[in-house]
């Protein structure tokens, strides 16, 4: 009651201005889940492209059309998820991780650099090995992320038919 009267009185004398207690965005929304899911999607798309077959060595025009169409769609999604993966990792790297984390995990910069390279390679090529290596690196980053929050982690199987595990806090 006294507080309300005080606030009301002060706001009559002084205009209320806004002071932000955050920088670019509100706090508490960092999570490496999306980056891992994007890496798993790249594995899935790569697998689906690799699995495409034709009924013969000389497929009909209609069949070729369908395959080209399917490859275009799969490639588009693979491209998008590679960029999404890089975007999510860049946010963690630039906005979440601090100097104290770097002191504790001195390989953090190298790990992020490596993720960027693997994501680019997985996007450029139809390369299952690169795609799997990308997921492995992003999982390592997720482990570090949760350790900085003093959380133990566990790996759960994703729902992707092509497999791939996701590091989550216990």
């Amino acid at each position, binding site marked *: 009651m006294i*507080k309300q009267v*005080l*606030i009301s009185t*002060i*706001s009559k004398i*002084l*205009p*209320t*201005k*806004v*002071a*932000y*207690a*955050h*920088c*670019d*965005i*509100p*706090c*508490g*929304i*960092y999570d490496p889940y999306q980056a891992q899911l994007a890496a798993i999607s790249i594995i899935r798309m790569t697998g689906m492209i690799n699995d495409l077959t034709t009924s013969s060595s000389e497929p009909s025009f209609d069949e070729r059309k369908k395959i080209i169409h399917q490859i275009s769609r799969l490639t588009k999604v693979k491209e998008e998820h590679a960029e999404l993966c890089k975007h999510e990792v860049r946010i963690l790297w630039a*906005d*979440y991780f*601090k100097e104290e984390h770097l002191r504790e995990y001195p390989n953090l910069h190298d790990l992020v650099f490596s993720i960027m390279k693997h994501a680019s390679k997985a996007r450029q090529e139809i390369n299952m090995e690169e795609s799997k290596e990308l997921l492995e690196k992003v999982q390592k980053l997720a482990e570090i992320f949760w350790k900085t*929050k003093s959380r133990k982690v566990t790996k759960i199987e994703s729902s992707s038919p092509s497999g791939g595990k996701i590091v989550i806090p216990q």
Partner: protein
Amino acid sequence: MLLSYFVIVGHSMEPSFKNGSFALVSSIPYLFIKPKVGDIIAFKKEDKIFIKRIAKINPPAGGGKKYFVKGDNNKDSLETGWINKKEILGKVIAKI
């Protein structure tokens, strides 16, 4: 800014200042004393006013003192980084 009244928007100063709480800020204290580590200050950056705590002060190195400001909510707050004395609007003198 002799005396200003602010509503705090954001979570980075929790638990000291919760989202939606109010603060009185004045430039008068810094007419007599220098800003020090631990002070909660209001400062202007890119036309926005922020409230953060001074975490570090670097020694003068040609360009004058710089102040490293950050939120109290270390779990997730973005660090704002270094600011100049001229960007400091005042010290938080009361929480309402």
